[in-house]
């Protein structure tokens, strides 16, 4: 297993759940991590966890949809740390609303966080990656982006858009040896899931849909992210890996 020693990784939405797990895992394998989140206390808590474990971490507190802030903060980090090698576009928001209940404002926010946020964070890190002729972009999609869901069509649409960005960027950035892939998690036990109403009683039902009979811990998704971010995946680009316990098995 390769090390991330000397590499800098940016994780958007790194203050909680899967994003925190990605930050902790990349850091434990040697990366210096930049934890972006809109939630200040959460971002600094992740930074503290990484530092307590002997790793290096910095926080960026801003809204991922605030393009000017994202640009300025990432540029400042790149100057300070000398490089940004890995970007995990993880910041996301949930939802499970039926079509009729999704307002324009909610729709815009959903796409702004997932799609616009990922787009402009990537735009900000790519110039440096092109200069170094190396880079890893990992977009966090979802099984709902692959196969849909009976609600949350705004979320499904945004997560599918991330798969489109993944494939387009994989082609566009390949000449600079920048690898772009997506991770499409299935059921993961995160704060976002646990906040759903009546989640405890619904969990047994949800797990019944998963052939492996369980949801994943965020750390398991982080392992796939870390694999794709590593030199072991240097021939993998434009692909989607879906750790989903067998819940979603789809055509190629």
């Amino acid at each position: 297993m390769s090390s991330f020693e000397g590499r800098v990784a940016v994780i958007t939405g790194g203050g909680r759940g899967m994003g925190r797990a990605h930050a902790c895992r990349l850091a434990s394998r040697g990366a210096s991590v930049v934890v972006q989140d809109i939630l200040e206390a959460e971002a600094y808590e992740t930074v503290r966890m990484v530092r307590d474990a002997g790793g290096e971490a910095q926080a960026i507190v801003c809204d991922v949809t605030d393009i000017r802030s994202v640009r300025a903060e990432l540029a400042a980090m790149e100057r300070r740390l000398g490089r940004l090698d890995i970007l995990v576009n993880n910041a996301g928001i949930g939802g499970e609303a039926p079509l009729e209940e999704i307002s324009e404002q909610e729709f815009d926010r959903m796409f702004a966080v997932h799609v616009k946020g990922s787009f402009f964070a990537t735009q900000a890190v790519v110039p440096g990656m092109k200069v170094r002729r190396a880079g890893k972009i990992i977009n966090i999609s979802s099984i709902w982006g692959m196969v849909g869901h009976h609600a949350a069509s705004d979320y499904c649409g945004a997560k599918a858009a991330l798969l489109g960005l993944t494939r387009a960027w994989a082609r566009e950035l390949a000449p600079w040896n920048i690898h772009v892939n997506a991770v499409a998690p299935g059921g993961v036990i995160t704060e976002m899931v646990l906040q759903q109403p009546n989640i405890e009683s619904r969990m047994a039902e949800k797990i019944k849909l998963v052939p492996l009979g369980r949801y994943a811990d965020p750390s398991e998704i982080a392992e796939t992210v870390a694999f794709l971010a590593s030199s072991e995946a240097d021939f993998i680009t434009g692909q989607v890996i879906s750790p989903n316990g067998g819940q979603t098995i789809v055509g190629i």
Partner: protein
Amino acid sequence: MTHDLHGRIAIITGAGSGIGQATAWLLAERGAAVLVQDIDPDGAAATAARLDRQGCDFLVVVCDIADPQADRRIVETALDRWGALDVVVNNAGIGIDRSIEDIDETAFDRMLAVHVKGTFFTTQAAVPALKQSRHGRVINTSSRWALAGHDRASDYVAAKAAILGLTKAWARELAPHRITVNAIAPGGVKTAMVRHNLGETGIAAEEKLVPLGRWCDPSEIAATTAFLASDAAAFITGQVVSPNGGKTMVGF
């Protein structure tokens, strides 16, 4: 370390050359005891020589993977020696670029027997032992051509596509036993088989068609297999990972 394979017992078919050989070496390097199967005694011996030099725990079985009786013997040999089995890498394969008119019945039968029957009956023989393992893994070797087709070798393409069918069915069937089943669909790999078929100039021409501008070394495919064999991939099942340099990106 979640990528560690100490204590795991792995069978790698077609391990006398190319991807299979690289896979046997990498799994052993990460601590697994490995059974090296190949039809070619010289290839198997070459794989074994390095395992021996490195003090790895290994066995060699020389047989034809297309013979179900031989497949059962492979598994029995592993169980006699180690008493358990955790990982099966179904890798044995043959490849010849022929047009449809040039594929006779014998060639057709052989193509399907090696890839499909070999994969099927090796796995069937292994399943009782894999059910006892807490980390059961089946990793099938498909091909980028099974995803995207090819202008020749339709017998090969069909056999590799059948392997995706087995992968997805077994992922569901074996999930209750915590056995994960995934496929790797390699793109261009510089193996002896391909060097023989295309020659160096042929490979150089093909490399120009790959977004990343190169073909990979067998060890890079082995790295994906080693990831899927590890605890880090415990929530991944029924999936296809295609290290192909961006040559093929396909839909969900």
